């Protein structure tokens, strides 16, 4: 009885499977391949609409591929990606920030794009993307993501405040410190910062030709140049030039406070004024890269990349889409207020960029002196993701702004950095 029932069930299942197979195989030839593309909210409130229009255009031009766009909110974005990969539901393609591709690659979650890079190198179109940006995503002999944008930090200043005190725009750290001290008073400060302003430390370390790592990729925070940099920041604080509420601000509120005229200088990225009105934009300018105490100029740069995941069933279509997106994404800036700078020189030729003094400054003066956070080590490595995510850099900045003794801060940070690199 039991046996018979099982055979009947097996027969039934087999026939059902056959029927399903027959039904589904016929239209499968014509049905387009579906790609799940996760994009982050890189621009203003219109971003989703503009990104969807771009996706629609791609789908029209490629009848055999259907891309489904999901905009991942910045809140919890990193957990969203980790959770998706860990639970086997990674997208086919996504954009992502900084060392996300490097880290996900080390977790076997990334599908390298070597063939795509090779094809682009052959037809010459790779020349549009600077080698330096490509190199960040060149790991273990594989290209793991295509860089599409680059982010910096540069010094913004309030023209109105400097004019009021009849001060020239600073060109060096020393002049910055003097100017900041001169304008401080009556509820206005020289420097605006925030509790999550890790960029200020990273950028200034690079600026002074220091950095987190030595040539061998070993943690190197205790170097002379780094100590000098932290002492400079501590001096700004000791002068009383830094808004004392800075430690408690988050980036949003620091921007808000800077734009409302609370401070004269603020270190931020190309997106600072993306949502400001014309009146505010007229009051704010950007300084060229400042000279450090030894005359060095430099700034930190962060890539944003577009990548494919190893869980994808459609690697060929994913490559097609990655290439197309990288070539056609201009509207993400021109129509959706995208924050960073495009990696492609051809896109930067758009009047949208050439006519803006800020993007021009970034492209002409910051880009040539920009270095990634791993700088002297020459090669990126997956732990960099944890270095940036850990929080110890921001905590060091908070403690500098609190006026804690400088000689203890760098050793503590070095200790934490060593722990991260050793995977703890």
């Amino acid at each position, binding site marked *: 009885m039991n046996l018979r029932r099982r055979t009947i069930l097996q027969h039934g299942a087999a026939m059902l499977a056959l029927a399903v197979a027959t039904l589904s195989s016929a239209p499968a030839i014509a049905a387009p391949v579906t790609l799940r593309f996760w994009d982050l909210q890189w621009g203003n409130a219109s971003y989703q609409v503009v990104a969807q229009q771009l996706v629609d255009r791609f789908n029209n031009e490629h009848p055999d591929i259907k891309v489904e766009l999901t905009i991942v909110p910045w809140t919890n974005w990193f957990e969203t990606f980790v959770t998706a990969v860990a639970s086997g539901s990674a997208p086919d393609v996504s954009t992502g920030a900084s060392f996300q591709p490097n880290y996900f690659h080390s977790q076997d979650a990334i599908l390298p794009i070597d063939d795509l890079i090779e094809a682009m190198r052959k037809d010459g179109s790779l020349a549009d993307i600077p080698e330096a940006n490509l190199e960040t995503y060149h790991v273990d002999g594989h290209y793991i993501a295509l860089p599409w944008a680059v982010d910096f930090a540069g010094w913004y200043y309030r023209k109105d405040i400097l004019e009021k005190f009849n001060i020239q725009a600073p060109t060096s750290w020393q002049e910055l410190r003097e100017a900041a001290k001169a304008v401080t008073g009556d509820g206005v400060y020289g420097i605006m910062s925030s509790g999550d302003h890790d960029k200020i430390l990273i950028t200034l370390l690079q600026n002074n030709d220091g950095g987190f790592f030595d040539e061998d990729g070993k943690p190197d925070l205790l170097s002379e140049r780094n100590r000098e940099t932290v002492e400079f920041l501590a001096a700004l604080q000791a002068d009383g030039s830094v808004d004392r509420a800075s430690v*408690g601000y988050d980036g949003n509120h620091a921007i808000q406070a800077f734009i409302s005229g609370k401070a004269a200088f603020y270190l931020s990225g190309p997106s600072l004024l993306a949502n400001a009105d014309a009146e505010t934009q007229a009051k704010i300018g950007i300084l060229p890269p400042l000279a450090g105490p030894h005359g060095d100029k430099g700034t930190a740069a962060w890539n944003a990349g577009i990548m494919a995941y190893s869980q994808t069933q459609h690697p060929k279509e994913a490559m097609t889409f990655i290439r197309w997106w990288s070539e056609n994404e201009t509207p993400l800036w021109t129509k959706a207020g995208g924050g960073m700078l495009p990696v492609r020189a051809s896109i930067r030729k758009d009047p949208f960029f050439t006519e803006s003094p800020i993007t021009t400054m970034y492209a002409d003066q910051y880009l040539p002196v920009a270095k990634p956070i791993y700088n002297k080590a020459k090669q990126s490595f997956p732990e960099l993701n944890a270095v940036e995510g850990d*929080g110890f850099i921001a905590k060091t900045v908070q403690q500098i*702004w*609190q006026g*804690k003794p400088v000689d203890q801060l760098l050793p503590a940070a070095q200790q934490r950095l060593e722990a991260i690199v050793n995977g703890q």
Partner: protein
Amino acid sequence: MLPTLILLVVVVAFPLVSAMYLSMTKGSLMKTSGFVGWANYVSLFSNREFLSALRFTAIFAVTSIAGCYVFGLGIALLLQKTLPARGLLRVLFLMPWVIPSVVAVAGWRQVIGSEDALANLFLRAIGQNTVYFLSDDTWAVISVIVIKIWRSIPFVMLSLLAGLQAIDRSLYEAAAIDGANRVQTFFNVTLPQLKTVSIVLSLMMAIWSVNDFETVWLLTQGGPGYATQNLVVLSYLYTFKRSNVGLGTAIAIMTLVVLMVLIVMSLRQQRQPK
């Protein structure tokens, strides 16, 4: 009961076992690499960040539970009276709980976040100095606790209000006949009758304040320095940002075990014959 049990097995037992396993491994959520036994747990006892998080978590939990219970009970007693527009008042008292936390914290930043924030305008108006609430270690701790209390009051108030309504009126009549005054009635009738609700409430509050991520993360991200970094934030940092899921889950499980012991102990206490 049965569907609940199935749900619990799928959603709790299964993940719990996998988490216990994870807590004994190295590597990340996406790719574990090797079994290390109790090493993660052992390393926690010499981890300074863990010990400081433990300390802050305990302070945060005790003060916020006490605070929201006292205020919640006070408001519940007030709203039990037949006041004009009582319905409207009850709804307005719920607002801090209804509002999403991102925005609640944004609202609070306007109260304490800068020199021109409301609290500082007030302090200067009464001749005090400006306070940098979120820039100073001690003030940051106080601010996080106050905001946690603020967000929890409505829910404590509502639960206690329902508890108050369920008290048998005849007990009050009996107390009145015995000649008890208001204070005596409160301590001899009201509080004992609220005991069961209060115990459950404080246990839940203990869990929620120990596991509170949003208030801390949105307001201070654990700063300044490590002043307001609690166990969940640390566990989150290890699990996601530091790519060390073993240590992250070990912290979560340690927290769970400690809380569970506390909970079982206090519930045993409550079950004892009166």
